């Protein structure tokens, strides 16, 4: 019974923790401009993150070490440095975007200017990382993030034309007012949002934090294979709400305040309360994860003592690096840069850096020296290789598409 509860909690946390500011904004932008014609990208991204998150969890459980630590040792410092540079910079952008997301959501709840909420968000994230136990931190934000299910509820309350939505999913086409370049630019952005690199670094480091062993692999697999696809459905429902309410009204999403309007239309103030709690929880949870990921990658590359399972004094550089990341994120937002714009860039840059994250994981997961009998099987390798091709194509296409479309504008 206790084990069953553990599995249920893990799945629910995985669903609630799946959506972050990147998913929220990108799915709403895409829904408001392209309807559901890019759902296939979300599905592709979700399968990809399931494959690689599962792989990195297995690396951590089999070797007892986090993926990045093994990559550094297995591929050497130069390859490790390239991996570190790419993932760390993108992590930092994502930390900034998530802090901005918390502040924007709190502005929607209070009408107090979001810039005043930024220092509050920075301090709150730091305090939780400093004081709260890893499992409590993960479970509370994940479970509160579940309130975003209100998007799915709102979709049913809006009584959409299901046939039309289904047709958009099954026969995707580019709307008249949009260009093919914009369509593919947002396809890359959605893919980057679904496969954000920090997710696998956090997942594998979290496995070490929680002391996973081989016998925990089954539960981790269920969390990933059930939780992430359901989280993906949540992403699709955000896009669908935007497609049903905003697209026909000629509203192209450029701010977080527009994302919540379909929920308010369908479920009124109660729905609004749920969606605001969900956005704060999702962005706060993701801010914790990205901040920790920044600390993990740096500490694991330089061989510092790391982990929340250690007292802060025993992992001083790990904690100091996270404080610096939070301060940088806060300082960037204090310049007045639009957090939604930072989010849009962060997901595209995630797509650019994807090969640097996922190729090394695949190499390590095939190394019997670390994995023993738990190396990838042939079917997993085949799927992973297909994904590497997709990842490489998305990575190479991102920059030209960004230039051609003026970053999707």
């Amino acid at each position: 019974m206790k084990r069953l509860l553990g599995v249920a909690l893990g799945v629910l946390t995985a669903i609630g923790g799946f959506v972050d500011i990147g998913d929220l904004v990108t799915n709403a932008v895409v829904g408001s401009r392209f309807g559901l014609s890019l759902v296939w990208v979300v599905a592709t991204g979700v399968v990809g993150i399931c494959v690689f998150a599962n792989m990195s969890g297995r690396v951590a459980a089999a070797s007892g070490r986090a993926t990045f630590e093994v990559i550094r040792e297995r591929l050497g410092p130069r390859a490790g440095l390239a991996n570190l540079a790419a993932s760390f910079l993108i992590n930092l952008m994502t930390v900034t975007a998530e802090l901005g997301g918390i502040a924007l959501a709190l502005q929607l709840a209070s009408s107090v200017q979001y810039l005043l909420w930024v220092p509050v968000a920075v301090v709150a994230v730091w305090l939780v990382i400093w004081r709260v136990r890893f499992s409590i931190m993960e479970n509370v934000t994940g479970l509160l993030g579940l309130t975003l299910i209100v998007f799915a509820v709102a979709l049913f309350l809006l009584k959409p034309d299901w046939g039309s939505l289904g047709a958009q999913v099954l026969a995707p086409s580019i709307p008249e007012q949009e260009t093919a370049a914009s369509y593919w630019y947002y396809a890359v952005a959605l893919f980057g949002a679904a496969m954000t690199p920090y997710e696998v670094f956090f997942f594998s480091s979290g496995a070490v934090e929680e002391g996973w062993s081989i016998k925990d692999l089954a539960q981790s697999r269920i969390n990933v294979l059930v939780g992430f696809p359901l989280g993906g459905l949540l992403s699709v429902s955000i896009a669908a709400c935007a497609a049903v309410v905003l697209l026909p009204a000629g509203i192209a999403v450029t701010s977080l305040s527009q994302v919540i309007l379909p929920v308010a239309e369908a479920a009124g103030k109660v729905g609004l309360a749920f969606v605001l709690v969900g956005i704060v929880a999702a962005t706060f949870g993701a801010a914790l994860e990205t901040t920790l990921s920044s600390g993990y990658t740096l500490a694991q590359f330089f061989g510092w003592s790391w982990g929340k399972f250690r007292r802060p004094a025993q992992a001083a550089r790990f904690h100091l690096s996270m404080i610096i990341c939070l301060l940088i994120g806060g300082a960037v937002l204090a310049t007045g840069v639009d957090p939604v714009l930072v989010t849009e860039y962060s997901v595209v840059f995630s797509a650019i850096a994807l090969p640097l994250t996922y190729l090394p994981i695949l190499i390590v997961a095939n190394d019997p020296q670390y994995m023993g009998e738990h190396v990838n099987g042939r079917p997993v390798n085949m799927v992973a290789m297909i994904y590497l091709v997709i990842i490489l194509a998305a990575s190479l296409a991102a920059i030209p598409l960004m230039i051609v479309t003026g970053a999707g504008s």
Partner: protein
Amino acid sequence: MAIGSRRSRAALCGAWLVCAGVAAILLSGCAGAPGSVPDTVSTAVKDSSSAVATARLALGLDADGKLTMAATATTLDDSLKELETARTTLLQLSPTVQNDRDLRREALAVLDEGTSGLTTARDAVASTDGSPTLQDGDRLLEAAAGRMSAFTAQLGGQ
């Protein structure tokens, strides 16, 4: 060893890709810059039209009791910011021929109507003496939306 070194090179190439991406941000800024005056005017009016439609939706939800005052005020603020950005884009244009100058002038007038509607709507939400009303704001926004739509159609016909 050779495989390891190839992997290192591949990883470094990837890092270069990310650096190239940073350059792309700058370039995409340039790409977003005006190609031609009519294109820029059209994009600015389209963005403004989206902002006005957002404001109208928020006002309607507020009137129906479905949105809190804080959420309505924030949505209207964001819409106003969008209009200001569009207006700044138009003001930064340097048209070289009379037709383009006229086009910009007309577009600015259309955007001003949207701004006026939005400020009235914000006043209505913040008002403690009942004036202006949400309906006053919506009426002005409806007129601005109509004018933007007509202007966009006129641009499309040119």
